[in-house]
């Protein structure tokens, strides 16, 4: 099973929306939450629809529209979305109106807009797309489940082009509440994320949509070869064994991987898994990279990582700001993304340079 990334629309805390490469200037903030840089939506979404549209839906429609504008097709054969927390802002809004206003609901709109599949549904409505439409909401597996589904749809010949996206929004209440659990650092400079050596990370958000196609085209970024997930692994031995199995399935060895992109998020406790793999598992001649200092931590951050991997393969260069070691490979033919969320949801995505 494989498919080609033929276009991308990525709204993120960095300037990723315009152009097809790595942004020239990076955003750095003293914060523990990186918010998306949002475009002028009026250029991308019908202004009538824009009124009262929740922010997450604006981000979804804009990034999927940009993806489609650059893609070989105007309407995909399927729409597949992964979102860890869905339309969180509206869920919180409706929940508070139930709890605080003693069930005297002033507006039903937040309820309608709180539905997890509102993102995929609104994209379908925007495109008048009647095809397969699904939404995965499972923490650190959300985007990976969407990718696997898209790969299967293409393998089944059910679809030639699948629009697949990973999207999550951050809200003030989410930041506030999860601070109780020590999820976040004190405000830090995101570009220096690994310097602090403290527990906690920085929150983030993003909306990255990809057109996956059965065949490559002129503008193809990369080929997706495999995706896999595993849950609740007991220790690094189990992680290694899962990656072994994954690579064996893809018929490659560790030495074949030119670049490993790790989900390192600056939390000294949870990053141990990544550092162990760098030291004791992966091949020292592979290049190592990371990305959460650019987009923050969120359940579908691997969609941002997939964008990064795709532009690295297409441009054949690894931006210095994402590099972790000084190894060098002549060509970047194979990239592995390995991420875990608090050692619970582990995921692997393998990409390669289109032949």
């Amino acid at each position: 099973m494989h498919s080609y990334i033929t276009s991308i629309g990525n709204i993120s805390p960095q300037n990723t929306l315009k152009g097809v490469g790595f942004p020239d200037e990076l955003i750095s903030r003293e914060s523990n939450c990186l918010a998306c840089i949002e475009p002028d939506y009026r250029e991308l979404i019908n202004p009538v629809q824009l009124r009262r549209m929740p922010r997450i839906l604006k981000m979804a429609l804009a990034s999927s529209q940009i993806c489609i504008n650059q893609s070989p097709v105007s309407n995909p054969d399927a729409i597949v979305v992964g979102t860890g927390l869905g339309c969180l802002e509206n869920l919180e809004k409706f929940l508070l109106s139930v709890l605080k206003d003693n069930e005297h609901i002033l507006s039903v709109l937040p309820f309608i807009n709180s539905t997890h599949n509102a993102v995929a549904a609104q994209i379908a409505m925007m495109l008048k797309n009647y095809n397969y439409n699904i939404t995965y909401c499972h923490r650190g597996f959300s985007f990976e489940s969407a990718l696997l589904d898209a790969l299967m749809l293409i393998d089944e010949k059910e679809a030639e082009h699948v629009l697949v996206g990973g999207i999550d929004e951050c809200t003030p209440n989410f930041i506030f509440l999860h601070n109780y659990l020590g999820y976040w650092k004190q405000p830090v400079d995101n570009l220096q994320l690994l310097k602090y050596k403290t527990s906690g990370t920085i929150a983030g958000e993003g909306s990255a949509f990809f057109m996956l196609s059965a065949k490559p085209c002129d503008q193809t970024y990369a080929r997706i070869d495999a995706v896999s997930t595993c849950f609740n692994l007991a220790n690094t031995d189990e992680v290694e064994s899962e990656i072994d199995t994954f690579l064996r399935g893809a018929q490659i060895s560790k030495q074949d991987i030119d670049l490993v992109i790790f989900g390192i998020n600056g939390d000294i406790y949870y990053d141990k898994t990544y550092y162990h793999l760098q030291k004791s598992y992966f091949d020292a001649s592979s290049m190592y990279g990371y990305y959460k200092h650019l987009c923050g931590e969120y359940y579908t951050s691997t969609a941002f990582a997939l964008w990064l991997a795709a532009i690295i393969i297409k441009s054949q260069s690894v931006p210095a700001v994402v590099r972790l070691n000084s190894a060098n490979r002549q060509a970047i033919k194979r990239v592995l993304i390995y991420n875990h969320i608090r050692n619970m949801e582990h995921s692997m995505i393998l990409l390669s340079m289109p032949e």
Partner: protein
Amino acid sequence: MSRKVVVTGIGIISAIGNNADETLASIYSLKSGIGRLSLFESIHNNISVAEVKVSNDQLLNLAGITTEKEFYTRTALLGIIAARQAASNTEHSKLIDARTGLISATTVGGMDLNEQYYKSLLENDTYKEYLGVFDSADSAEKIARYFGIKHHITTISTACSSSANSVMLGARLIRNNQLDMVLVGGTDSLTKFTLNGFFALEILSPTGCRPFDQNRNGLTIGEGAAFLLLEGEDVADQDKIICELSGYANTNEAFHQTASSSDGYGAVMAMKKALKVSGLQPSDINYVNAHGTGTVVNDLSEGRAIETIFAPAIPKFSSTKSFTGHTLGAAGAIEAVLSVLAIKYQVAFPNLNFNQPMNELSLKPQIEVTNANINHVMSNSFGFGGSNTSLIFSKV
């Protein structure tokens, strides 16, 4: 792609019973699970709902949970109970194999505990440990931990079609040879959040839903969970095969976020495509377990779609939501289990509270338990966001 997908286990808990036998007994005696709200205080306590008549303490016992009890949402407990029944005839070693998966579905996940603690959490951190159980993934991960499943775990959330889509995904994972065995289903508990949401949408029936009736006045919100164990026919223990999952389709109506089109074209597309996948003709379908929520809009739309597909020879059809209520994220799986039972016991289930056909159509659902040759059953699930899914189960 020719690999057959078979059902080898089922589990169900809803307002009409804590397992398949109790469920059937309620249906055979035409006993609906719709009644008064008792789970929580609400200004809407005069509106009919379909509660599972078991307290959380009893659910903990049924699920066999003895530690960290306070962190089990009602949604997770219902899910564990149904999943445990579905897996009861299977060796544990098979369940935790890397070629076994778990696909769950829910609409609001751990909302039952979220609405208990959210207000207080905004003031202080007393209940901070509960923050980890509010989202949609929690129930699936609780089920995964319960069995020790580590691979291919995910949660689908496509509103009222959620768990029909988990059944479909499980079947595709087997057909694509990604997995040999997969637990598929969904779970949702009754919450203030959904009760108020549907109330504000003005689609709740005050007295109990009357699917496909001219005087229908809305849906009845329910709760429950159901899981099915799916296996590749080539690897399944032949004695355990109950029926085949022969067809499935997911289409989108792209019409309106909360309403279905008046001619039901989305439903037509889903049913047509499911028939195509199964290689069956409309005339092969012996019973349709309809989505049939009891809202004015859904039933007319679905009724028209059923006529479009099947007229003039309309098969037996009914909405079992008149028994179970609309269990949202669990509905697709609950009705999939009922479809499996229809084949197992060669019976078409009745539709309660039906008196008068809709003026626009001449459709009359089954109103009695009817023994018949049931070779192929279609189960429809339609949801917000135009998400339409049809499944077809076949006798083997």
